[in-house]
């Protein structure tokens, strides 16, 4: 017979700590599984997902830098600063949407903390993003882009934190809804496609500023946490002091050259993300009790 300690405050704390360890290891296990399954049988394996942003960078630099003349200097790099983040968000939300349904066999047969399913989708996307970001940074250094870098680089970690929070929040929502309403997947696809244009990824936020401020929508525009994250990442990696020719004359590409603007935006974005997260986490917990019978 195994000796079990009597129930005391300490042993309850030990069990809680143990459960946290189990949950964390379960999460890493699931992410490792996803990575392995995704690249099983492909010769270049992981290299594919790193080559992808490089190809995108090359194509967009060529098309918008030489053929269409977008006006934004070093357009390829400007684009990648925001696009990689948006892709991470879209990947996380898209796969979280299918996460519970795809693991139906597990959900119906094994009692385990169901929250790890959407979380593993987010973790998978974040791992990818960090690797792609690394590739982007290396290429930017190689092309001398580092000359535009300053203390703004410090915005990157908090921006990632806000992005992570918002991804988790939306992932809980779509994962739970998709169990009951299977067409959530299609709606998410469309919303992600359109949602990208709510963020200053392909265009510059300054291009919208005058019009938005006239209708007092400038702050509303930045209530979207992803917009905050994208401009912060652009401030960090793309840098300031870069101008382009617009209808009203020469303009800065980024909306502000200081750092406070971005810190404030990230603060608002984080607050919004947290509120959404609390709401969707509750929804997920309430709905997850019935997952096993709805699948």
């Amino acid at each position, binding site marked *: *017979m*195994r000796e*079990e*300690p*009597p*129930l005391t405050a300490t*042993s*309850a704390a030990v*069990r809680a700590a*143990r*459960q946290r*360890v*189990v949950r964390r*290891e*379960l999460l890493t*296990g*699931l992410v*490792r*599984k996803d990575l*392995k*399954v995704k690249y*099983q049988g492909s010769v270049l394996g992981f290299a594919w997902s790193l080559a992808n942003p490089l190809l995108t960078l090359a194509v967009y630099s060529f098309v918008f830098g030489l053929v269409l003349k977008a006006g934004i200097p070093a357009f390829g790099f400007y684009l990648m600063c925001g696009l990689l983040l948006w892709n991470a968000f879209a990947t996380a939300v898209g796969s979280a949407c299918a996460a519970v349904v795809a693991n139906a*066999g*597990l*959900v*119906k*047969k*094994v*009692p*385990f*903390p*169901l*929250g790890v399913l959407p979380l593993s989708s987010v973790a998978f996307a974040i791992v990818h993003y960090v690797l792609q970001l690394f590739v982007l940074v290396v290429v930017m250094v190689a092309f001398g882009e580092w000359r535009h870098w300053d203390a703004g680089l410090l915005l990157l970690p908090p921006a990632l934190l806000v992005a992570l929070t918002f991804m988790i929040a939306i992932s809980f929502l779509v994962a739970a*809804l998709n169990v*009951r*309403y*299977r*067409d*959530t997947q299609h*709606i998410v696809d469309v919303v992600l496609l359109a949602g990208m244009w709510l963020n200053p990824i392909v265009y510059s936020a300054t291009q919208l500023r005058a019009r938005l401020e006239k209708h007092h929508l400038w702050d509303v525009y930045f209530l979207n946490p992803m917009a905050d994250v994208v401009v912060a990442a652009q401030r960090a990696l793309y840098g300031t002091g870069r101008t382009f020719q617009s209808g009203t004359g020469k303009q800065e590409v980024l909306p502000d050259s200081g750092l406070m603007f971005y810190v404030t935006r990230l603060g608002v974005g984080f607050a919004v993300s947290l509120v959404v997260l609390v709401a969707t986490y509750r929804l*997920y*917990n309430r709905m*997850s*009790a*019935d997952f*096993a*019978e*709805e699948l």
Partner: protein
Amino acid sequence: MHEPITSPTAAKSGEVAISAHNIVKNFRPHGQATSLKERLLRGDRIPRKPFRALDNISIDIPAGHTVGLIGHNGSGKSTLLKVLSGIIRPTTGEVVVNGRVASLLELGAGFNGELTGRENIYLNASLLGLTRNDIDEMYDSIVGFAELGEFIDDPVKHYSSGMYVRLGFAVAVHVDPDILLIDEVLAVGDEAFQAKCLDKIEQFQQEGRTILVVSHALDLVARVCDRAIVLDHGSLVFDGDPIIAADTLRMLLGTTPDDEIAAVAPPDDSNPVQIVSAVPLAGIGGPEITAAYAGQPLVVRVTIDIAADAAARCAEVIIVLMGVGDIPILIQSHHGGPGPLPGGGRWVVDFRTDELPPARGAAVIAVQVNDPDGAPIAVFRAKRGFALVRDTVEDGLIYAPYTTAARIQARPAISAEPIR
């Protein structure tokens, strides 16, 4: 979000390991909106009756017991096991589980074909609530139990189904549970592996762990379990001795051999006396029952069609509650006046017992209509049986109140040598 470890208290012998009270589980009816489009277009306007999978089930399982859960397909066994393991929540009612639970609802649920056996061990065990350190410690033992040898580093999609379930079972039994919930997983694998699983279960029993096993293998349940619960259409009809439980279920299913009856009277449509049905009811006007309780009323309602010219020959209607092995437990007969059933037509005869004697076991109703000489005109045997339930510790077909007394008659001669 439910936790793999259901409750923080450890199970000790003498304590209740699983306590479920008044569990009701309704499943949402089909036809409810399954897409946002549908939901928006027609809303949830069509209210339909939910399907009741579990109807007011209460069970207490003391720590260290091995309990079988049996019933026909769709009786609610697996649903009950899922409710107890926390995978689905009951519509109403309360479940309290003391100790760490491992649910074996499907062997190898959560295995991924692309991963190797080794990787799947780690992933599966962490799903079941183990940390990496725990798994490292028992890794060799798991591989040894699964008998996979060098195949452990192959992707499990290349495994045979036998290897697959061996690995699944090996991981599950190493989770070191206080309570093990098993759903029909012992039916897989070859005989050698089944024997190994049974050994493991025996070891668990000796270690004082609690086991709840769902199975269709009634002999296995009778052999392994101290107790068995019979479910029928979501209701608990019997809870007690596994052998009686198995008999009860066989009678419910109508799988007891009825060769003898068939020999007495082959089905004959030309017989002017036809016994249509014989059903046990909870009382006059009460519902049909699957279990009759000692001390409670029981009504057996017999329906007979009689042709007008045959009525005069019907002298007596007899019912017999037949137990296991066709032992007549209770015999009641109806006769009176010029004849028990004066005239042709459809007759309904109620046999009413106000207080059922304290019997235990399973019973099936047999009916016989005799002529004035006592020769049977028509015989009938119900297809389904029902349980006779009594609330006593003692087994045995019947119970009588008793006392015991002990006195010593002769003392042994005192040995010169001290007894060691």
